[in-house]
């Protein structure tokens, strides 16, 4: 199974630059998610890997083979790259039956009839669409169509699977089932998979590695935990997580921001150049008064403005020092709206960003050491 290497890749359409400069390394057998808002360049990246778009500059290699490089005038056609691609719209061929859709690639690879039929049946059975083999795509439900698209791709055993938001048109339950299915396929065949999505939960649950993109640049490449717990910048911090991360912008003059500034300056003077601090809603907890704070913890008085049950968990809106912040809890709240309390945050849960919004990594060690 080959890996994929993008070096210095740029892509522009006329004067519009869709990908600014992308370096990405997908290891053999890795499950990589390209995550980002729409228009961030993730689909373009996937299509460049597939060969459906060409690079404007840079180099793209699959395994040892360079497949696209304008500088050396190299371009390998998509049909010769041996990849599998599932589209968001599935792109099933409407004039072919399920079976014919699935065996299309096998026919192209000149499989003998018996082998072809055996493989087709095998894949269709594995994905639970064997019963519909004679139907046309228009006679299938969304979930069934999605399975056909997957089966069509898997039938030929491609080295690299590319998936462009394949689950976004499914209902919640099916999506969950298909996620499990994909994960199973990945472990079973140890294929290299590049998966495009704008759904952070999908990325979190599926990927070994997540590449967060925004406006044509790679924001962060890391494991799901990395992305969530140590976002590289404010964009990643704010894009990932729901309810979204609370940001205390140091340009504000409210009491809470001033308090946070003082807190950092007094106890962790070695951290400098702070522009903002991010606090995940679930790292916040409430205590009756200041005595509830452990040594070195950050906290402030807060009024419970609203309690919003979300089924199994609760989002609590707090008014504190001129700011509104949200906390998330899985424990049924004992307080009522209007109660005056204190909120507390363990120091290691503070995400410290500089004025440009980039994470101050040095601060992590300082804060971790303080907590220990």
């Amino acid at each position, binding site marked *: 199974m080959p890996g994929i290497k993008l070096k210095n890749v740029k892509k522009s359409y006329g004067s519009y630059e869709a990908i600014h400069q992308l370096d990405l390394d997908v290891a053999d057998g890795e499950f990589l998610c390209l995550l980002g808002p729409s228009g961030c360049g993730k689909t373009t990246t996937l299509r460049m890997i597939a*060969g*459906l778009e060409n690079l404007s500059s840079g180099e793209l290699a699959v395994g040892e083979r360079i497949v696209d490089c304008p500088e050396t*005038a190299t*371009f390998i*056609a998509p049909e010769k790259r041996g990849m599998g691609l599932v589209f968001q719209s599935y*792109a099933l061929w409407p004039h072919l039956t399920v079976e014919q859709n699935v065996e299309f*690639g096998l026919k192209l690879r000149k499989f003998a009839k018996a082998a072809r039929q055996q493989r087709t049946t095998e894949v269709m059975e594995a994905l639970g669409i064997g019963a519909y083999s004679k139907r046309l795509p228009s006679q299938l439900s969304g979930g069934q169509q999605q399975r056909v698209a997957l089966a069509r791709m898997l039938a*030929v055993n491609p080295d690299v699977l590319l998936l462009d938001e394949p689950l976004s048109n499914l209902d919640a339950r099916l999506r969950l089932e298909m996620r499990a299915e994909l994960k199973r396929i990945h472990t079973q065949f140890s294929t290299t998979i590049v998966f495009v999505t704008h759904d952070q939960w999908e990325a979190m649950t599926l990927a070994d590695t997540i590449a967060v993109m925004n406006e044509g640049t790679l924001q962060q490449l890391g494991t799901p935990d990395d992305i969530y717990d140590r976002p590289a910048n404010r964009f990643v911090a704010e894009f990932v997580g729901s309810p979204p991360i609370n940001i205390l912008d140091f340009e504000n003059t409210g009491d809470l921001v001033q308090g946070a500034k003082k807190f950092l300056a007094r106890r962790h003077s070695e951290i400098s150049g702070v522009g903002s601090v991010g606090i995940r809603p679930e790292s916040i907890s409430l205590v009756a008064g200041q005595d509830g704070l452990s040594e070195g913890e950050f906290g402030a008085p807060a009024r419970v403005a609203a309690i919003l049950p979300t089924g199994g968990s609760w989002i609590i809106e707090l008014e504190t020092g001129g700011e509104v912040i949200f906390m998330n809890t899985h424990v049924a709240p004992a307080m009522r709206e209007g109660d005056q309390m204190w909120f507390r945050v363990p120091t290691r849960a503070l995400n410290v960003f500089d004025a440009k919004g980039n994470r101050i990594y040095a601060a992590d060690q300082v804060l971790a050491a303080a907590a220990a």
Partner: protein
Amino acid sequence: MSETAQSVDRRAGNRWVTRLKYRTRIAMREPTTLIGILMAALFSYLVVVPIVSILLDAVQTQFGDARRTGTEVGGWTGYYIHRTFLSPIAQDMFWQPLRNTLSVAFGAIAISVIVGGILAWLVSRTDMLARRWFATALIVPYMLPAWTFALAWTTLFKNRTVGGQQGWIEAMGFTPPDWLAYGQVPITIILALHYTPFIILLFGSALRRFDSQLEDSARMLGASRARISWSIILPLMKPALISAIVLIFAKCLGEFGVAYVLGLPVKFDVLATSLYRNLGSRQTGVAGVLAASIMILGIMTLLIDAYLVREARKFVTVGSKGSMNRLTNLRGLRLPATLFAAFIFFISVGLPVMTLFLSTVMHVPARFTWENFTLDYWIGTDLDTVALKNGILLTPELWKAAWNTLWIVGSASIVSGLLGLLVGYAVVRTPLRFLGTFLRQVTFFPYLVPGIAFAAAYLSLFAVPRGPIPALYGTMAILILALIADQMPYASRAGISAMMQLGKEPEEAAQVAGSGWFHRMTRIVVPIQKGSLVTGVLLPFISGIKGLSLFVVLAVPSTDVLTTYSLRLVDYNYTQAANAVVLIVAGLAYFGTLTAQKLTKTNLAEGLGG
């Protein structure tokens, strides 16, 4: 120092070459671009070159005119322009036909807007009886060739100004005056009846889409019904109305058949007949000027339309999903309204078709006695006539013309349908944007040029041998080529929209699966587009069967199609035979349209959009 500069230069040059190589490789990787370039070349030759050729005819001395223009054959001259616009005969040749064309067009527009507007409202927004039936029935006049009605009119109103069989009215003892039998009045009425369906379709569909909530809001604010119609409904209907009016005007510009049949006896010329006359009398240079004038008028009209519609669309709101369409209760007017619709149907379909049919089964016009009826004109033999001694169905020329129609129109439609799909493919897929734009425009251009002017352009280009191409006049090839080019606007639009709808993904999916270009074309693209290919062939085929103005210039007796054959019969005053052939054409066009609609599950209204 200079050496390093040189090597830097060389490296930069090399990089540039590599870049170009890469670009070319990407562009030529698939035959798409190659196909696009071939198509662009083909249509430059089929569309641009003939038009340039006729424009040159207008300003270059033609064979035999050297003495008059004072320059050699092929030299530049303003003689023809002067002759057409300023000379003593300019009145007869250009200005009077122009006035006639305009007055007929505006008259037809005025009548069809009033009649069609009322009918559109009745059909789409009221509780008139048999509303659905009328919605289809009132469109029928458009499915029939316009000069069907002209022949019916002469059959009824003909007087002694021309020879041949008597008209019915005359046979009954009244002599219709010339102004009623020929010229402006009948031409205007017939064109109005023929184009009323345009208004019903375009205006009606806009009315149907109109959201009743907009009406209701005005009513809640206390507006009267008249006020609502005038300041809410009408302004919002303006784009549809403008579109319909401009389309009718553009069609009237090139209208030939009706004016030919009804205008000739009283020398009532319109631009199209004047052009035909000049072509007939070998006035090539003047014909060039006239054809160019018609083209320019056509292009101007449609440009004005594009501008007006764009302006008007700015405030158009498309009915929301919850738009309601309440029908107006006509109460006491229900029956009169229904009778009005029935009357229009009667005079625009029932009466003409009936007249034509009866005229072919009666010896003496308008005598309704049993022994006067006969099938001789259809299937008789050894008739007591100078020529055409057999009934029309036993005349070999009819079958020859029918075969020609099938062969010429059929092959042109199939070719243009396929080319349309290829153009669509190239336009949608080529990475070279200017190529796509050029193809789109060049294939759309014939739409702006009335058929008869386009035919004149073909005559100008292909009447003599040019380079490797022999003289094509008198062959089927010229008809097929002209028809292909004439049908391209529809074919390419159908192709482009079909390819747009298909999107790239099914093809890309095949590509990633390992399928090469040709394999994708034959296994994925064409099979998926089968339906739209059928539409793209069938609809031009039907309009080609009833087409006249393109053929009348280019056909000779041996390449007659049904329409030109019937016109020849009119010229020879074989009234019954001509009427019979026209009935056959009308029948083919009508049932063909119905079949096409059934097969493709489309509606005629959609094909009329622009």
